[in-house]
């Protein structure tokens, strides 16, 4: 569906076969675990069995005596960081915390926290050696509950944390605390806003910690060469970020580290931080040999970066004509062991879909004895969408207003100022709601006992940041495109298509490769839905440079000045109407001066935001509390869909993860802080039997900041599903679910009118 008159494109909007497709479907693509180097050693880690404890003593002697064991490291081998805060591309990071997360120093802060690592001739020997390392702990009371962690008498996790105030939050005290950050954003007059409201709804919500659930576990192989150059092979969302983190953790210059990206089996925000890389590097330094370490699934769950559990209280007020007048939110997120939850983003997203005149948002980043949380697809936005979109549904019910009508009436648009300050450029919130309203799905009535329909919207910022590409014209008329953005969602192709469109050649005539940090200019992470947008702009700039160079080469051929040559739809046109195709000129380049190489960079901070609106039908077994998804339609503003299949794939993938988060996924902890379900058997991501075909409606409201109007599409589709499903459950059973996941036992307990017992 297109909302604006769309320029006619030749490549954009088509669906070429992905350049890396053959390697992926034939199993030839090399992932992190596939690397094998001569004389390579295998690493394994010793991890804390306790959620909160002091490390009293570590005795590695028995492990070191084992035949086949080549090196053992503990925190003594990891450089001291002191009080350093370093800008790591996704924000400032406290290096002491980052180092302690990689290898615990005085304390362990979650079960699975690394305390030692071993390199041996094979992985079995390494694991056996780990079992022989004796660690004496003095256990401390685990802090697992968000609200208890915030109380003044809670045991303290990190003695160096004081509350940092952001926005209009009052400045914090100098007391030790688990509350690392306190956000406050305000707009208008909140008191007056609620005083003016005819209807006010307010609820408290809780959501469980969940994991991204990527298929490929974390991995790292490192070789510390005799000249102090370190090469790392790993699957990562950002080679340059991994390089910088590794260098900073090892107190080495960035230029001494080269990160070689392997294919990546999913990241969703969880493969930005480094975990194993510095350990592999330090083990390699000790042995002089390459060391490879892989995580097990249990290690991935227990000790990487899930997204936080949350506690939220949200309140909305509206006039009886359906105008939203006030919104208030109080949001606390589990940071995990160290500060860094996406609470800031959550505070900015909570009312982001609406034109809200009066708002106040307060947020807290709270340390608890769980793994340090990390980004997960639109970090923070899914939590708050669950709250706000449930309340919007409740307002619609009370106002007897259609949920699409209410959203259209109150939608944020160009010029709307968000509660946290920024004013929107042209955005497509309203268009996504209209697309749902006009969809076949929404127009079809849903019959059936215990069936219900729900609607919800969601927002994600999308970021710009820096990218670099280079592109060389080959003598056969093809272009070799070199980029630094690791390809998670088909971006080799979506970048190649933008280069092809700009040059007027076929997507198949571009050969994209993703290369290591020594072989391409600086490129930020694959994250924030930025690659098709930002690396796309870099590719367009490289193509424009190639156009200019091709005009110059044609000018040499036609013995005229370059300004007399025009570049038109993949052709060079001379002053007396001479015409050569891109390929024809490429074939003659050998005689026409310098090699033709285009470079392109990009670096805008922001892009236009992404919005989506979803509609879901469910059927519930009222005796079992089990929710089946019958039908699902997602409408999302993609700006301009470069490769519609990949846009649809992102939309569907986000919805599936959202369904998992909504219905079954959760970290199930006991009182000692042990996660009881660190496997895919009991950490239930949806199977293909749990999701129907997800129908997609691509809305295209071009982003003026991108030459072709691209908006990032990867993240926002995960935001609405929990709320949409909660609203559908309400429609079916008349119960408002305020806790995620809406697992069968919770739905049943709510339906039977009891309180859940956990």
């Amino acid at each position, binding site marked *: 569906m297109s909302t604006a008159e769309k320029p006619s494109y030749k490549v954009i909007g088509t669906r070429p076969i992905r350049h890396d497709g053959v390697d992926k479907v034939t199993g030839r693509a090399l992932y992190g675990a596939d690397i094998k180097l001569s004389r390579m050693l295998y690493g394994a880690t010793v991890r804390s069995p306790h959620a909160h404890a002091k490390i009293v003593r570590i005795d590695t002697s028995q492990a070191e005596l084992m035949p086949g064991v080549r090196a053992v490291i503990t925190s003594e081998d990891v450089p001291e960081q002191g009080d350093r805060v370093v800008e790591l591309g996704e924000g400032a990071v406290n290096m002491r915390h980052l180092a302690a997360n990689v290898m615990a120093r005085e304390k362990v802060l979650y079960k699975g926290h690394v305390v030692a690592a071993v390199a041996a001739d094979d992985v079995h020997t390494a694991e056996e050696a780990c079992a022989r390392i004796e660690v004496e702990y003095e256990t401390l009371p685990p802090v697992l509950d968000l609200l208890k962690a915030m109380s003044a008498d809670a045991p303290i996790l990190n003695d160096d944390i004081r509350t940092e105030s952001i926005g209009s939050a009052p400045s914090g005290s100098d007391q030790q605390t688990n509350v690392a950050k306190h956000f406050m954003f305000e707009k208008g007059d909140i008191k007056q806003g609620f005083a003016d409201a005819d209807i006010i709804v307010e609820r408290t919500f809780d959501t469980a910690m969940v994991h991204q659930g990527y298929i490929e576990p974390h991995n790292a192989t490192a070789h510390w060469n005799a000249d102090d150059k370190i090469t790392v092979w790993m699957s990562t969302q950002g080679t340059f970020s991994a390089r910088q983190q590794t260098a900073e953790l090892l107190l080495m210059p960035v230029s001494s580290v080269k990160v070689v990206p392997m294919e990546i089996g999913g990241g969703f925000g969880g493969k930005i931080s480094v975990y194993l890389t510095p350990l592999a590097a330090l083990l390699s330094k000790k042995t002089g040999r390459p060391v490879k370490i892989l995580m097990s699934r249990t290690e991935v769950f227990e000790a990487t970066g899930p997204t936080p559990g949350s506690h939220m209280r949200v309140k909305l007020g509206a006039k009886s004509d359906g105008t939203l007048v006030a919104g208030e939110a109080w949001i606390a997120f589990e940071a995990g062991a160290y500060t860094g939850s996406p609470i800031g983003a959550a505070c900015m997203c909570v009312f982001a879909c609406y034109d809200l005149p009066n708002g106040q948002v307060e947020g807290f980043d709270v340390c608890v004895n769980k793994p340090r949380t990390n980004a997960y697809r639109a970090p923070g936005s899914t939590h708050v969408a669950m709250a706000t979109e449930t309340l919007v549904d409740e307002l619609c019910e009370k106002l007897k207003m259609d949920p699409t009508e209410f959203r259209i009436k109150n939608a944020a648009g160009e010029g709307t100022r968000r509660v946290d300050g920024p004013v929107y450029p042209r955005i497509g919130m309203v268009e996504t709601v209209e697309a749902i309203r006009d969809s076949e799905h929404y127009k079809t009535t849903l019959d059936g006992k215990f069936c219900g329909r729900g609607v919800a919207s969601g927002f994600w910022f999308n970021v710009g940041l820096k990218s670099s590409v280079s592109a060389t014209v080959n003598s056969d008329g093809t272009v070799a495109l070199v980029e630094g953005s690791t390809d998670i969602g088909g971006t080799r192709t979506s970048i190649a298509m933008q280069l092809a469109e700009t040059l007027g050649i076929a997507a198949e005539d571009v050969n994209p490769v993703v290369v290591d940090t020594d072989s391409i200019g600086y490129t930020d992470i694959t994250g924030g839905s930025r690659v098709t947008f930002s690396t796309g702009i870099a590719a367009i700039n490289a193509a424009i440079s190639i156009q200019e160079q091709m005009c110059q080469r044609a000018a040499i051929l036609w013995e005229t000045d370059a300004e007399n040559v025009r570049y038109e739809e993949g052709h060079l046109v001379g002053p007396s109407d001479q015409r050569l195709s891109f390929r024809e000129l490429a074939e003659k380049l050998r005689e026409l001066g310098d090699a033709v190489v285009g470079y392109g960079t990009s670096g805008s901070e922001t892009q236009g935001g992404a919005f989506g609106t979803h509609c879901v039908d469910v059927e519930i077994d009222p*005796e079992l*509390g089990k929710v089946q998804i019958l039908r699902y339609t997602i409408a999302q503003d993609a700006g301009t869909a470069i490769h519609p299949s990949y846009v649809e794939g992102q939309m569907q993938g986000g919805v599936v993860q959202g369904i998992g988060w909504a219905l079954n996924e959760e970290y199930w902890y006991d009182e000692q802080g042990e996660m009881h379900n660190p496997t895919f*058997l*009991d950490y239930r991501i949806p*199977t293909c039997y749990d999701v129907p075909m997800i129908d997609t409606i691509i809305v295209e409201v071009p982003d003026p900041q991108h030459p072709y109007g691209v908006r990032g599409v990867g993240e926002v589709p995960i935001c609405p599903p929990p709320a949409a499903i909660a609203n559908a459950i309400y429609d079916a059973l008349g119960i408002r679910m305020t806790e995620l996941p809406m697992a069968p036992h919770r739905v*049943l*307990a709510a339906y039977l009118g009891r309180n859940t017992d956990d």
Partner: protein
Amino acid sequence: MHAFDYKSPEVLAEALQQLADSDGSAKPLAGGTDLIDQMRTGRHQPTLVIDIKKVAELNVLECAGDGLHVGAATPCYRICGDDNVQQDYTALADACNIIGGVQIQSRASVGGNLCNSGPAGDSIPAMIALRGICVIAGSAGTREVPVAEFCTGPGQNVLADNELLVEIRFPPRPTASGSHYRRMIPRNEMDIAVVGVGASVTLNEAGTTITDACIGLGAVGPTPLLAARAGECLVGQTVSDATLANAVEAAKEIISPITDMRGTQEYRVHVTGVLVRRVLETAISRATGDPCVVRPGH
């Protein structure tokens, strides 16, 4: 994983000898779908793994005058693909059909499911309902134990270190009988039972009165359970909602479920009631000749 020896005997006597010689440090491997994972995580560390898949007696699948014989190592795909099992021992087919996916079913055995003795093993309530008898061989000879008495605790059973489960034998099925196994799982596939219920019902000729019933329950106690009174209270009763409600109450009386990551205790009690009723309804329909196809997850 630790280092271990591997043997694959082709004769039962040889397997038993190897088992006896190893003094409790060996583990039989049928499909290996439980054992290999338990060795990987270090829960079991046998020094010898005896692959029993090549022993003929452990691979039978025969329906004869004296009933059905299922070799302990016979893979699930053969069991649920067998016409006799589908027709007459439908609860067993139902169970084998939902244990894992295609890959698992082509390796996993009901013998392994039973010897693993997990409270939630899907084949066990079905085999209890069908009144299966375990045929066990050891150096001292052969003995028989009802499936309902085989498991003694989570991961524990009546087998001595030197004993092998050879087969599970099921009595012949009377006419007008039907059976069913069903579990509650939060997803629709690839999951472990929150509650599992197997039931077998025989009706009189008119199809109105229950003449025999047997109910097995899974995941609601330290072992799979025979709900003896629940079955008995149905005998001689006409088929009605009230009759089934009595069985539901009797079944709930013997369970002692826990709260864990798969469900709360309260939820399991409730679901036991729902499933006992639904499973009996399906078993009764099947006894009247209606095949009742069940969708995964429902």
